[in-house]
C-alpha cells in the first residue's frame, strides 16, 4: 500500500496539514504562523521538477483549502503555481548545491506568499497592503529555511519512486 508514491503523498500531507493546523498555528514567532504546507510543496518542486511540484501543490492546496475558511480551490491554485515555480530550480541548476538550494527555497517562499496574496486579491478578498505583510513574508521565509533539511528528507522519502512504482 505504502509503495505507491501518491498514496504516501496523501498520507504524509494529512500529517503535515495536521501539524499546520495545530503546532504551527500555535507557535507564532513575531505573531506569524509558519507555513509548512507551502514548505512541503517547495521542497517537492525543488527536488522533483515542475510537474511533480505542480501536482503536489495542487493536492496540498486543495486539502488546506478544506480546513481554512478561504474559498476552496484558491490555495490549490496558488500552491500549484508555487510548486511549479520551485520546480524551475532543477532547470537552472541541474546539479544542486546545498546552500543554493536553501537560498532558492527562501526565494520561492517569498514568491509563494505573494502568489497567495495575489490569488486572494483576484477574487476580491480584502488584502490590506501594510508593513505587516513584509513581516509575514520575512518570518515565513526564515522559518521555511530553518525547517528545510527535515522537509527535504520527508519529501524525498514520500515522492521517491520505488521499484514497484516504475
Amino acid at each position: 500500500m505504502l509503495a505507491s508514491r501518491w498514496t504516501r503523498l496523501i498520507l504524509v500531507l494529512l500529517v503535515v496539514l495536521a501539524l499546520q493546523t495545530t503546532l504551527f498555528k500555535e507557535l507564532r514567532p513575531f505573531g506569524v504562523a509558519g507555513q509548512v504546507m507551502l514548505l512541503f510543496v517547495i521542497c517537492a518542486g525543488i527536488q522533483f521538477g515542475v510537474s511533480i511540484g505542480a501536482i503536489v501543490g495542487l493536492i496540498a492546496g486543495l486539502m488546506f483549502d478544506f480546513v481554512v475558511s478561504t474559498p476552496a480551490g484558491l490555495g490549490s491554485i496558488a500552491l500549484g503555481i508555487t510548486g511549479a515555480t520551485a520546480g524551475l530550480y532543477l532547470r537552472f541548476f541541474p546539479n544542486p548545491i546545498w546552500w543554493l538550494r536553501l537560498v532558492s527555497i527562501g526565494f520561492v517562499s517569498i514568491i509563494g506568499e505573494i502568489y497567495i496574496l495575489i490569488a486572494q486579491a483576484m477574487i476580491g478578498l480584502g488584502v490590506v497592503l501594510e508593513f505587516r505583510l513584509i513581516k509575514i513574508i520575512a518570518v515565513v521565509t526564515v522559518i521555511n529555511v530553518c525547517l528545510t533539511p527535515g522537509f527535504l528528507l520527508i519529501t524525498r522519502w514520500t515522492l521517491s519512486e520505488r521499484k514497484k512504482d516504475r
Partner: protein
Amino acid sequence: MASKNTTRRRAIILLTLTSIMLVTLDLQDSPKVAGLRSLFGTLFYPVEGVARVITRPVGNAWYGVTNYNKLLDENSLLRQQVAQQEGATVAAAASVRLSQELLALNGLPTLAGINAVTAQVIGESPTSFSQKIEINQGTDSGIRVGMPVLNAAGLIGRITKVFANRSFVMLITDPDFSISVKVVSTGRKTTESTVRGITSVTTSTAVPLEPISNTPDAETTTTTTTTIPIAGFTAVVTTLPSTPQGLTSITVPLASDLDVRETGVIQGNGPTRQPTVRFIDNSLRFGSIEAGVPIVTAGGSRSLAPPDVLIGVVSRVVERVGSAGPLLEIEIAAELTNLSFVRILLYQPITEKKSP
C-alpha cells in the same frame, strides 16, 4: 517516459480545472462545496486531534518561554484594573438591569431575551493573512453563519463557516468585516428648566466630573444630576435635596436630553489598524462627533446583530471634504489578541428566519 509526462500533464490540467470550479462554486456559496468541506473535516478531525494531543507539550513549552514575563506584567495590570472596576461594575450592573426592565416594560427586544451559546476558542486561523478564529461549537449547538459573537467586553465578530462541532469566526478587524452601527452622542449639553419653582440643572459630559453642588435658596429647590461614563455607557446619579413641604418633585424629561444617534457602517482594516466607521451623515443631528463616544450595533430587520451591542468608542475623527461625511476610527472594547471564551448570540434577523 513520454507517457508518464502526458499523464502528469493531464493530472495537472484536471486538478487545475477542479480548483477553478471549486473557487467558482464556493464563491456562490454552493452547498456541494460545503458538503465536501464538511466531509473532509469529518475525516481530518481525528488526525488533527491526535496531532493536537502530541504537539500540545511543545506548544505549552513555547508559550512558557515566550510569554512568561508578559503574563506576569499583564497579571499585575489586570489586578489593578479589577480593583478599579469593582465599584464601577456594581453601578453598571444596576444600570443595565434598569435598562433591561425598561426595555421589557415597553416591549422592546433586549440582549437578555436572546439565547446564547458559550464556546471556547480552539485556535487562530492557520494563515497569517485572515483575521479569523476557530471555536469548538457548531451547528449541533444551533449556530448558523452570520450570528454575532461577543465576549465580556462587546462584539468581536461573526460566524463565517460552521461545521457540526466547530465554527470559524471572522473578527471585527478583518478587512471583509462590516456591520451597521450607531454612534451615540454624549457631547456636553446643559439645560435648565423651572417647573413650579423647582430648578433642574442637568450637566452631562464625556469626562468624569466632580458632583456639582448648588445651595438651594429660599425661592427655588435645585436638583443636581451628575453623569459618569462607565465602559462607554453613562450611569446617571441624581441627588435630590429635601423637598420643601407643599411641593412635589416632578420629573420632566426634555427631548433635547435624550441621546441622539447617527448610523454608519463599521469596517475592519487588519490587526494593526483600527476599524473605521463610514457613511456617517455629513450634517449631523448632534453637532460634531468627539473622541470617546460609544459605538453600538444598529440592529434592524436586515442586520446580522441585534441592536445596542457595544463595539467600542471613537478614538479619532477624520473630517473629509465634500459630502462624504466624517470617517471615525474606532477603539474596539474587546481585546482580540487573547480570546479564550466567547458567546455566540443565537440571533437571526427577521428577514433571515425561515417561516414554519
